[in-house]
């Protein structure tokens, strides 16, 4: 088994439609292939219909990526700006420690490059 104990999990909660673009950017610019995303709904505190229950709910995409620990801070910053989280309602990002992770790499497929 090829497992690493030196990894971090970066999680992003993004507005609908941003995760796929982020995944493609990470592949093209950082050669990272271990990103996955799933869908959910999010609610914020300052919603204008807050008085009618928990407030307005919007579709969200939750993007998760395992990265080597030594690259985690740089990628955290890269993703923050790349995914537009420096704007209001741009989502949020956080890092958690991972006790153990497997390595994930794709085989070279010659016909794909042609």
């Amino acid at each position: 088994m090829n497992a690493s104990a030196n990894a971090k999990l970066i999680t992003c909660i993004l507005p609908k439609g941003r995760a796929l673009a982020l995944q493609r950017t990470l592949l093209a610019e950082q050669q990272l292939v271990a990103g996955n995303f799933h869908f959910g709904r999010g609610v914020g505190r300052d919603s204008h219909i807050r008085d009618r229950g928990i407030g307005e709910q919007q579709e969200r995409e939750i993007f998760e990526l395992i990265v080597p620990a030594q690259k985690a801070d740089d990628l955290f910053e890269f993703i923050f700006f790349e995914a537009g989280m420096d704007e209001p309602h741009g989502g949020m990002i956080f890092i958690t420690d991972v006790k153990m992770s497997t390595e994930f790499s794709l085989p070279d497929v010659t016909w794909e490059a042609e």
Partner: protein
Amino acid sequence: MQREFTVLTDVSLITCVVQRGKAEGVVQAAQDAGAQGATIHYGQGSGVRERLGLLGLAVDVEKEIITILCGDDQLDQVFEKMFVAAELDLPGAGIMYVTQLDKAATFVPKDIIERIHQRDFQGRGGVGIDIAGDDGK
């Protein structure tokens, strides 16, 4: 161009798994206790339902998974309110746990950053902040 962003420290992630349809009540309780927002997604679970036989029909196999980012200073209060709202003391009702985050970041308006700096100056606890940046390459 120099870009800056605010890194939040002393933040934890609460994850709560409940039966489908119960999430809104739990999120409401968390917000009442001071949580800012929540994200909910769906899943399927197993557990006590499989051990209850016919009575297991009362436990919904479909789950809602709530994730809430919370400052460590509010964590105990939010956790407790969510526990009560989700009725997690009942068998099969769900499970909740807290993960410590290394750091988090989101858009934080300048007036809020100033308020946090004032709070730190006065020596009161809460979410820690740190201004990070890059050279925009």
